[in-house]
């Protein structure tokens, strides 16, 4: 049971073989047993979880079950929830309780989900290893000396170790897909504008998007179906977005006629040779399933990380200016005057990576540098987007590695911010272009999970779900569980 998919749990609930309370208790017990080893959850309220489960069982006894009825879902500490704290794993929000729910939280509640708790993350989602969290690092269930990836590391570790069957993350430059890859689970970043950002603590507003992290492809579809849709309260949420048959797309069992692009810029020197071999083997499997592999080029790929590290910090420096210690957040002791209050509160409240990003952004936006940095990066962003548009004239979908390496050791990259930034080299361009992307497990390298990334044109999550479902059905990677957290099956 613990390693069951959401859809399997749903079937058992529907058949009356178990109850939402039993399911919730099972995962609460696993959290109690294993969270100390992983630090995946930063907030859990058992009584509140069980109360939601009881309410779900009662609802089911009186009505038709809703789409996520009684299913436990954990959420990253970046989502505002009226229940419990919302801290974005930052000291500056250590006492913050949100006065409202994020729109996606409202959607999950309306779909009958049981919200399990808040998961660990890099502070303000700025990081690729979950090591910048104010609550300490999270660990990878496959080897607790290694990082789970980031920034949604807690959500990834919690799903991989079956402390919850599913979780929500957010993805600004790879923060769903990279940790999904490093922990051997499935994670989807929907098309920008598909899912409301209202009530999600903002990092880089033109890039941020929420999405599911789950054991199977169908589970990502179930959750995305529930959380997506236009929100008049989010000006960047897209009205009349093309609809997708979320669950129907997951019925695919082959790839006949599918043209898969293999971008040469994503298979380069510097990537782990075993990672490369796993992904090449996965592409061979796609061929067996009927797909045609087409070599393509995305020529501006090598500028994606540079463009991202102008755009994301610039937007972050603007977004994080709201932490002024007036309306919410940490305030320093005995401020001498207003300026002292701002500057000292922010120095005390923000961690070093957040300061680095804010300062990078403040510099890029400062007088005399705007054209050379921010404007230039936004133009390069257009070229990166055009690369994809051109590629999708000849292929239906693109397949790449999600990460050039498997999970690295804790502390290995913390001294060198630039090396850490390059962890997201394969995921960042997707955010810049606003496209949907999914990572699913495709093997092991050095005994650690490897992820295969699928990228589709805007609004074509259905193409991704179909290809990933066919691959999943033909392989058994999603059934692998980390031995240390295996428990009974």
């Amino acid at each position, binding site marked *: 049971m613990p390693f069951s998919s959401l859809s399997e749990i749903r079937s058992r609930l529907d058949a009356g073989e178990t109850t939402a309370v039993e399911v919730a208790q099972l995962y609460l017990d696993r959290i109690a047993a294993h969270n100390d080893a992983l630090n995946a959850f930063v907030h859990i309220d058992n009584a509140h979880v069980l109360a939601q489960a009881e309410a779900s069982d009662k609802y089911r006894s009186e009505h038709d079950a809703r789409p996520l009825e009684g299913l436990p879902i954990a959420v990253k500490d970046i989502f505002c929830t009226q229940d419990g704290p919302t801290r974005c794993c930052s000291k500056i929000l250590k006492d913050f309780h949100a006065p409202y729910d994020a729109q996606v939280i409202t959607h999950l509640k309306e779909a009958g989900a049981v919200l399990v708790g808040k998961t660990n993350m890099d502070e303000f989602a700025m990081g690729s290893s979950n090591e910048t969290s104010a609550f300490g690092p999270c660990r990878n269930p496959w080897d607790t000396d290694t990082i789970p990836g980031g920034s949604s590391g807690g959500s990834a570790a919690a799903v991989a170790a079956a402390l919850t069957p599913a979780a929500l993350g957010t993805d600004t430059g790879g923060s769903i897909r990279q940790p999904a890859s490093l922990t051997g689970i499935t994670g989807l970043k929907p098309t920008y504008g598909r899912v409301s950002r209202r009530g999600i603590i903002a990092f880089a507003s033109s890039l941020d998007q929420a999405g599911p992290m789950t054991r199977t492809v169908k589970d990502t579809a179930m959750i995305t179906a529930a959380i997506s849709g236009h929100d008049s309260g989010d000006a960047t949420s*897209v009205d009349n977005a093309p609809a997708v048959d979320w669950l129907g797309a997951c019925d695919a069992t082959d790839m006949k006629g599918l043209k898969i692009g293999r971008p040469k810029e994503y298979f380069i020197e510097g990537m782990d040779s075993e990672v490369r071999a796993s992904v090449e083997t996965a592409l061979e499997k796609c061929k067996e399933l009927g797909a045609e592999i087409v070599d393509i080029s995305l020529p501006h790929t090598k500028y994606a990380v540079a463009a991202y590290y102008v755009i994301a910090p610039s937007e972050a420096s603007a977004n994080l200016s709201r932490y002024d210690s*007036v*309306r919410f957040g940490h305030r320093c002791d005995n401020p001498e005057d*207003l300026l002292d209050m701002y500057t*000292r509160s922010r120095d005390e409240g923000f961690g070093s990576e957040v300061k680095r990003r804010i300062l990078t*952004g403040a510099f890029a936006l*400062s007088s005399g540098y705007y054209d050379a940095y921010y404007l230039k990066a936004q*133009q390069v962003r257009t*070229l990166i987007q055009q690369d994809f548009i051109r590629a999708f004239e000849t292929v239906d979908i693109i397949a790449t590695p999600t990460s050039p390496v498997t999970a690295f050791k804790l502390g290995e990259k913390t001294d060198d911010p630039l090396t850490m930034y390059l962890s997201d080299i394969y995921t960042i361009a997707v955010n810049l272009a606003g496209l949907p992307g999914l990572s699913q497990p495709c093997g092991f390298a050095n005994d650690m999970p490897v992820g295969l990334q699928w990228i589709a044109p805007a609004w074509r999550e259905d193409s991704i779900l179909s290809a990933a479902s066919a691959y999943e059905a033909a392989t058994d990677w999603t059934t692998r569980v980390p031995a240390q957290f295996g428990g009974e099956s």
Partner: protein
Amino acid sequence: MDIDVNKVAMLARIRLTDDEAAELGPQLSGILGYIEALSEVNTEGVAATAHPHDAAMPLRANVVTNGNRRDELQAPAPKIESGLYVVPKVIE
């Protein structure tokens, strides 16, 4: 590139300790050095992307939708008094 890290920090309203400034200065120079690669790209006549799907900013009717929630919205504030945010004295 050498940058005056304390000046940038003041723009961002962050007071760095001397140790932080000494560490962040070279790191920022390294990051900006990497970003310099963008200057190789010919972007003449290329439009800048702000919203990935070029969506127009929507307008909504100017009506109150959430009522008066002052107490709840002020609850997270460090210091309030009579419904006002309290900050150090601004004018002598």
